[in-house]
């Protein structure tokens, strides 16, 4: 693409450096900004700058926060006896979107994989143990991806937490909703049969 303006080209390149945005989409976004009033762009840039300068890690759960503590940790209606351990901030958002969970979170920042250079010390594991040691937490839910590395991480955590009187659970693994059995892979279907659950008809199972 040839541009009549160097400034335009720089802006397009800036947008195109973002994931999922190609040159054409970048150009469309930039042209849109040019057509709008200058104040619009100013507000746009300001909000990005404020976000980048202001956003920080929650000192308790390592979720994104505006201050020391994140919105979830501050919320008094949250169940403080429940902690859900996840790999990343995106996982928190995914679980929040389900509206099924009213406890707290703990973001590990990844899973244990020495090959990738990620050992337990690179993850927020110490913080979790300290939280559990305080005694208010009664159940720790492991909501980590069902991969080999995820299993390593769960096992490691379970060893570390063994000395505390907390209940350790993992999210259920099995056939997805709306999925048809014949298309489920053997491993998933096999485990679903082995780890079958009693039939229930209350609203939460639907």
């Amino acid at each position: 693409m040839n541009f009549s303006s160097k400034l335009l080209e720089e802006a397009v390149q800036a947008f195109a450096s973002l994931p999922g945005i190609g040159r054409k989409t970048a150009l469309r976004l930039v042209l849109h900004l040019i057509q709008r009033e200058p104040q619009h762009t100013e507000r746009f840039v300001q909000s990005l700058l404020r976000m980048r300068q202001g956003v920080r890690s929650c000192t308790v759960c390592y979720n994104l926060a505006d201050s020391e503590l994140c919105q979830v940790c501050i919320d008094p209606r949250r169940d403080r006896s429940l902690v859900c351990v996840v790999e990343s901030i995106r996982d928190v958002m995914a679980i929040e979107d389900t509206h099924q969970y009213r406890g707290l979170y703990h973001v590990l920042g990844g899973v244990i994989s020495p090959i990738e250079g990620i050992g337990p010390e690179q993850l927020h594991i110490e913080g979790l143990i300290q939280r559990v040691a305080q005694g208010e937490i009664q159940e720790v839910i492991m909501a980590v991806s069902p991969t080999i590395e995820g299993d390593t991480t769960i096992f490691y955590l379970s060893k570390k937490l063994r000395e505390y009187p907390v209940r350790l659970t993992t999210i259920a693994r099995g056939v997805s909703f709306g999925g048809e059995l014949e298309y489920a892979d053997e491993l998933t279907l096999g485990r679903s049969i082995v780890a079958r659950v009693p039939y229930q008809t209350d609203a939460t199972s639907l």
Partner: protein
Amino acid sequence: MYLQRLVLTNFKNYDWQSLELSPGLNCFTGLNGMGKTNLLDAIYFLCIGKSRSALTDAQLCRHGTDFFRLEGWFQTDDKLVQIVAKVQQGKRKILENNNLQYANLSEHLGLFPVVFIGPDDTQMLTEGSEERRKFIDNTLSQTDPTYLRCLMTYQKVLLQRNTALKQFAERGAFDAGLIQALDAQLAPVGRYIHQKRKVFAIELEALVSLIYRHLANNEEERVQSRYCSSLQDTAFEDLLARNLDKDRLLQRTTAGIHRDDLELSIRSLPVKRFASQGQLKSLLLALKLAQYRYLENQKGLQPVLLLDDLFDKLDAPRVARLFQYLQSGSFGQVCITDTDAARLEKIVQNLAVPLYHYQVQNGSAQLQNSTL
């Protein structure tokens, strides 16, 4: 089950080639370097999902091209199945079953069992234990999907453990919890693999002795195959715990099923050191044919048997006895390559099976003769 039709595009030295194959015997003759083995490798690829050679998938593309495609039509009991393999440089390998792409290549393994016997395979008897483990793994992966899955998990966790041991040594730190977590993952899959190998080794020994006696034509030469594993008399968890100090020192996992071996002996003498060339060749054939019988028993269908360039290395009486054996037992589809067309014609002329004979020259196969 047999391969009825094979189409190669840009595979090795083949530009484009379509071949009809006999459910019985298929002979490919031609000089060295003309592409006989490549045809067998193409068949192997369609059955297993990867090449038998040490080359990467991308390196299998014909020189100067950046993709290849293999297409095979397998006739099973009641239906015709089309398998297509597509490899393009820089992209993921694609394997399709009747136009449906496999999400996981391992789902394909075992649908079309295959046994390959090549000229250099006697290395398996004389070299380190890895080749013999590969032989066991290749067989069991074709019959037991759980075995394959356990093996893949084991290899992945083992790599994590070895990397962790190295990192501990470099940093002068040690985290017992991490090792315990990895050990807890290794133990169950390791146990499963060990158990399966143990049972397989017993069945294999019986089959090998029987076939070897036939091929060597010698009643006194008793073949034994003993499965050796450090898990034999110690639980895997204990073994890992006991070797931890040593592992930390050497920065790798020193005990486990990745160190297993199959010790072969003839007349109680270890094959590795004492076997003659003739004994090695007979034993190799016996092992591979035993693999064939094992796969046949387990799967309830006859594998495709690929014999690559065997006759240059085998003496005439052995070849005769091999064919006697092939004739005496029931075999499915067999594909043979040889440099000497006249010799092969002479050997196979009396066999009462439908036969195709292709002449292979510079990446092109021409039908010479057929009794179909």
